[in-house]
């Protein structure tokens, strides 16, 4: 079987049904191990103490927020170039998940910042970029919701997603420029230039676990979206049939 077979919605449904249970199990396993390492095994930071343990969820969440947007952008190319229905399904399913991870990154960033900086929110370059990313997710979801016919909105939202994706590096660079302009580098950096292996390994395990979790969630949400569209199509047929029978 090739990728083109998977791209067929019916076959996608049967393959995904088979692998999703395994993905959930793998995610629980890896995340369980990662959490054990992050909370129990990994050492405290000499500067931040135990607060550094927030990093093991903050960094994977931020990474997943970015990763999900990248996936949406790739799917959008699929929608625009090949007009493939599954590409739109993929983008649409990824948006709320990406938004949730970005939200988690914001909240954990804030909870991390409070003991370190003494404020719930600091306009630090990275946190601010994540906030802008979150706003872009909200925009995408709002635009999707504005179209009652999913097929109509697909290409329009895909264009927005790509425009946003092109702008992300520019926004990131600008926010960093703005940040260095306004805040002298007196604040403690939240990550050193190099991380000891005792911290890096738990972080990598968490990153792997969150990635598997994301794939499981994404595939499940895609299945829901495919089903939703089938239901919608059948309801329209049913309504048409009822209308002709009545007339």
């Amino acid at each position: 079987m090739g990728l083109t077979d998977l791209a067929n919605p019916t076959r996608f449904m049967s393959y995904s049904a088979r692998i999703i249970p395994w993905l959930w199990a793998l995610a629980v396993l890896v995340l369980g191990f990662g959490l054990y390492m992050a909370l129990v095994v990994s050492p405290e930071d000499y500067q931040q103490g135990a607060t550094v343990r927030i990093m093991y969820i903050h960094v994977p969440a931020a990474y997943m927020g970015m990763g999900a947007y990248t996936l949406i952008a790739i799917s959008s190319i699929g929608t625009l170039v090949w007009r493939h229905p599954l590409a739109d399904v993929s983008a649409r399913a990824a948006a709320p998940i990406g938004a949730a991870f970005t939200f988690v990154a914001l909240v954990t960033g804030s909870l991390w910042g409070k003991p370190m900086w003494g404020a719930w929110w600091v306009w630090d370059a990275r946190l601010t970029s994540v906030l802008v990313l979150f706003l872009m997710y909200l925009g995408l979801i709002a635009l999707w919701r504005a179209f009652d016919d999913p097929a109509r909105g697909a290409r329009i939202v895909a264009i927005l997603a790509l425009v946003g994706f092109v702008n992300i590096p520019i926004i990131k660079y600008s926010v960093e420029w703005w940040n260095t302009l306004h805040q002298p580098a007196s604040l403690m950096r939240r990550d050193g230039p190099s991380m000891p292996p005792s911290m890096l390994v738990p972080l990598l395990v968490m990153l792997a676990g969150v990635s598997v979790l994301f794939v499981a969630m994404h595939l499940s949400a895609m299945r829901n979206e495919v089903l939703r569209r089938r239901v919608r199509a059948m309801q329209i047929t049913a309504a048409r049939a009822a209308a002709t029978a009545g007339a």
Partner: protein
Amino acid sequence: MTALKALFARELALAVRIGGGALMAVVFFLIVVTVIPFGVGPDLNVLARIGPAILWIGVLLANLLAIDRLFQADQEDGSLDLIVMSPVPLEMTVAVKALAYWMTTGLPLTLAAPLFGMMLNVPPQALGAICLTLLAGTPALTFIGTIGAALTVVLRRGGLLLAILVVPLMIPVLIFGISATTAVITGPTPFLTPFLILVALSLFSLVLGPLAAAAALRASLD
């Protein structure tokens, strides 16, 4: 070429005539500038410090005010279908429409900004910088807004959605516009560095805006 010229003339005429919104944006800008001191207090030192930011944010908001009508009016009376079907490349048409919008909105805002800046006690040398940065930056705001206008063209209540979609994309323009302006007042960075980046952002949006907006219009009218 003549078609584009005719379109440009039509857009300008529509904006200037009764019912057009050419000066509305400037009035809105004045209202924003008037409201801010009520919030932060009339302290002239404070106003001088945040003046450039108020002016830039005011221009950003005022520029968004009418941009949702850029394609919607044409869509309602059917002329958008003709524009899309015409042999002139849609990207060019979009660019001309955006340019006309900038002439009737961005340019008046830019010219009004130094005047309003005096009301906010912005130092004289910064007034010139404001004018210059807005002249370089407002095209970017307009062309990014054009993308939002095209994305929401078929939606009944697109105005608010448009703002949500495009304002995050305008953040870099805002950052470099205000940096260049404050560089003149306080330093420490030279004026030219952020200003050149601002110009680059404008040029980039000059390309991205029409491309994306034309694609969105084609997708909307399918």
